[in-house]
């Protein structure tokens, strides 16, 4: 017997086979995933995987995503882990389902299982005479068992569905306006809710004229519970008007914020910190060759998720039972937190995932779910649709925290790097449940902290390095350097609410590391591509750098004429996931603009190649928006970025040409793609700007004001 196969963790956690696959009477199968569609195309890729292993066509497989009544518990859909973790569990479960059914077919047809062929669910022997189908077998009974995880999946060489571009399943509805999002749902008797949040983070409610709000047209209930305020009305516009009146008619005492947007970097650099050495590699002999040293400091502001649609949820409350429809990234963790807030047993809370506006990390989705339930509690038996207003989203969603990164390096006489260190300052990057364990109950849900009887806030945490890390994600570089030291300085004092945002610390760390290596190359008179390759041994990393440079038409040691520039940057996401190199081309005349972004990507086996391209293009453009424009403004009282004018983002006229080239590695494990381009985009653009300008901007975003300031300093 061959060595035991490693069971995918999500399958061990959810071992029952019928929790993963069911066969339907119309010659289809339904598969169940605890992962959620976030606009990244995951349900399509998982459908491909299931069809492949079950030997069904793509069209024969239906998929249900995260639902506490129906699907496996896979925690949160985040960190680009869906394909590696969710995909491997789906693959293994489906392979076993096929094997279990084939064993029964073999018995009935009296043909050894390894001689059977499955096509579109039809099971035949070589003679094509004896045949049965999945649907003719007692599949429900056969799948009523625990998975062993020991059935080897299909060899990649035999793939016919995986590895080919599939059209995303959700797109036709989204193009024709069919209801698809939480906000589009409608239940009989449904009412509309809005919340009236405090004016700033620590504000306490002094007074509100509830009677005046109650008298407004259509108002069904006014909810006040501690510092939580909300309203339920018959019609949506009535709820919106009542909310406006609540905000105007309420009085609060506010607490100052200890810093502001202009002061934030000084603030985080001067707090008490908890320091962790992420990596320390020493080679004294190499150090002795140091001829010249360099230092730089980079900074990144608070960045907002700012989904195009504000957070939203639909809820019903009956005594002893809560049901919510949510665009949460994790319906099971949400279920447990809601049960905690309302003092109910966990099974009394049911949470269904429904698509929401694009999700790039821990945003307001879970908070909105609690808000909707608090409003529904005031009107038992009637469903309440709650959506945040635009300013609720900007002022209350957890932001991607500000960071400062300092780098130091030494090179030898030939310009080779002999010493490299990076120090970073940041708050922890997560406030999700399950990261920090507290003895007393605590939750991540905003409104819970404001209630008369509050459930306290989960302490700020930072994802462990074993899972790729949070603040220190990609702080270590994978260049072959004899000396490298990385220290993460974690700031405990939290000026603004913060949690996971796409790529977490990797955005700032890669921006810093990949800017700095360019600075070294320049100081040593080396070409940035050649300099990177000189220090890189990993062949897959080299391949993406070489391909991006080639596709972009990179000219070695090209001098800028002062109006144009190009820059390159590289990263392997989490130093263990997808590889990417990006070349940016910019112009300075008539104003600073990014003209073209050329990327080369290697994510191992690409389940849905067009899906990878779509996500990579999207990741580049989103990161470009952060890099060129985004910074959450706040003063010592409040968040000042509250709409699209006070928080401008990339517009069509600023969109460059984007080209993504995929390196097909069918025999390598499939890796997530969504977050790979984030950091390299920032660095590639900053490097191109420095190439054109002759001076470097080390603080994001790369605005006109910062460019002028950098020019004035020289």
């Amino acid at each position, binding site marked *: 017997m061959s060595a035991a196969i490693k069971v995918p963790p999500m399958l061990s956690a959810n071992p029952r086979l019928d929790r993963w696959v069911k066969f339907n009477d119309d010659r289809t199968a339904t598969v169940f995933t605890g992962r959620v569609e*976030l*606009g*990244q*195309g995951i349900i399509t890729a998982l459908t491909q995987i299931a069809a492949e292993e079950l030997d069904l066509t793509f069209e024969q497989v239906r998929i249900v995503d995260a639902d506490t009544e129906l699907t496996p518990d896979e925690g949160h859909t985040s960190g680009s882990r869906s394909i590696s973790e969710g995909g491997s569990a789906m693959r293994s479960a489906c392979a076993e389902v096929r094997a279990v059914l084939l064993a029964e077919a073999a018995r009935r047809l009296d043909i050894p299982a390894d001689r059977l062929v499955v096509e579109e669910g039809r099971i035949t022997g070589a003679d094509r005479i004896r045949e049965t189908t999945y649907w003719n077998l007692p599949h429900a009974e056969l799948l009523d068992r625990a998975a062993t995880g020991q059935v080897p999946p299909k060899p990649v060489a035999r793939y016919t569905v995986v590895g080919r571009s599939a*059209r*995303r399943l959700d*797109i*036709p509805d*989204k*193009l*024709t*306006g*069919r209801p*698809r*999002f939480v*906000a*589009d749902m*409608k239940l009989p008797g449904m009412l*509309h809710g809005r919340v009236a949040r405090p004016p700033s983070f620590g504000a306490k409610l002094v007074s509100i004229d509830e009677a005046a709000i109650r008298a407004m*047209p259509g108002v069904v209930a006014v909810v006040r519970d501690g510092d939580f305020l909300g309203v339920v009305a018959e*019609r*949506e*516009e009535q709820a*919106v008007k009542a909310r406006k009146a609540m905000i105007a008619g309420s009085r609060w005492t506010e607490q100052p914020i200890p810093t502001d947007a202009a002061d934030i970097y000084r603030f985080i650099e001067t707090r008490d910190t908890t320091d962790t050495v992420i990596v320390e590699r020493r080679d004294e002999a190499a150090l002795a060759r140091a001829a010249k040293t360099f230092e730089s400091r980079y900074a990144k502001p608070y960045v907002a998720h*700012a*989904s*195009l*649609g*504000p957070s939203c949820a639909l809820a019903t409350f009956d005594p002893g039972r809560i049901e919510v429809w949510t665009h949460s990234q994790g319906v099971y963790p949400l279920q447990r937190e809601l049960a905690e807030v309302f003092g109910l047993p966990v099974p009394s809370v049911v949470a269904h995932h429904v*698509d*929401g*506006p*694009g*999700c*790039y990390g821990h945003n307001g989705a879970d908070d909105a779910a609690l808000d909707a339930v608090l409003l529904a509690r005031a009107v038992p038996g009637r469903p309440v649709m709650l*959506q945040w*207003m*635009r300013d609720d989203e900007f002022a209350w969603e957890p932001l991607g925290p500000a960071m400062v990164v300092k780098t130091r390096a030494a090179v030898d006489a030939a310009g080779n790097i002999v010493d490299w260190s990076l120090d970073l300052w940041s708050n922890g990057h997560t406030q999700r449940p399950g990261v920090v364990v507290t003895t007393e109950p605590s939750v991540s849900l905003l409104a819970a902290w404001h209630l008369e009887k509050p459930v306290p806030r989960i302490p700020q945490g930072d994802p462990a390095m074993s899972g790729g890390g949070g603040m220190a994600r990609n702080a270590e570089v994978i260049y072959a350097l004899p000396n490298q030291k990385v220290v993460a300085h974690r700031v405990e004092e939290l000026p603004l609410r913060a949690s996971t945002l796409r790529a977490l610390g990797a955005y700032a760390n890669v921006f810093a590391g990949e800017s700095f290596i360019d600075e070294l190359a320049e100081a040593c008179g080396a070409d940035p591509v050649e300099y990177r390759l000189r220090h890189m041994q990993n062949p897959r990393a080299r391949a993406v750098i070489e391909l991006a440079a080639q596709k972009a038409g990179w000219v070695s040691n090209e001098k800028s004429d002062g109006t144009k520039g190009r820059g390159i940057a590289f990263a392997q996401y989490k130093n263990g996931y997808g590889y990417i190199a990006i070349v940016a081309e910019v112009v300075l005349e008539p104003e600073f603009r990014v003209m073209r972004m050329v990327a080369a990507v290697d994510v191992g086996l690409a389940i849905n190649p*067009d899906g990878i391209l*779509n*996500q990579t*293009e*999207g*990741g*580049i*453009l*989103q*990161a*470009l*928006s952060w890099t060129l424009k985004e910074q959450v403004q706040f003063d010592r009282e409040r968040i000042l970025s509250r*709409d*699209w004018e006070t928080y401008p*983002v*990339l*517009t*069509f*006229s600023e*969109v460059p*040409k*984007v080209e993504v080239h995929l390196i097909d590695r069918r025999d390598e494990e499939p890796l997530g793609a969504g977050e790979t381009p984030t950091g390299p985009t920032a660095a590639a653009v900053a490097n191109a700007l420095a190439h054109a300008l002759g001076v470097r901007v080390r603080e994001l975003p790369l605005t006109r004001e910062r460019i002028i300031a950098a020019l004035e300093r020289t």
Partner: protein
Amino acid sequence: MSLPEPTRFTVNGTAHSVPAEPDTPLLYVLRNDLDLKGAKFGCGLGQCGACTVLLDGHAVNACDTPLWAVAGKQVTTVEGLAAGGTMSRLQQAFLDEQAVQCGYCISGMLMSATALLERTPDPTLDQIKEAMDRNLCRCGTQARILRAIQRAAGQGASA
């Protein structure tokens, strides 16, 4: 309480009469009274384009168009683009380019682009960008959206 005087207007070729306050944003009337969920609430401030619909052929933000302003007029929403269940050329181009990520912005994109191609059937890339400039997308789908619009205009993709 008596119902407000109904407002009469046409949506996707069908006449409607909706008894809502005249200052009600058209967006809520479309979504809640007429169950046309295609147009989305994004900001309610006329800044993002998620709620874009056509009013007598012109792209407008339904979130800041009051009901009284559409009395007697023709409104077209994304649900009205697929005549007889066949996707419009533009919708088909979005499908072919897979120009969607989360899709929350997409019906607004389709409406702004429909208005553009109606006016300017063979737009330059700069004209497309200008026409789409008030439609935001947070997922970074713009490059694909530009290619889809060019494809619908019968141009080889060169965005």
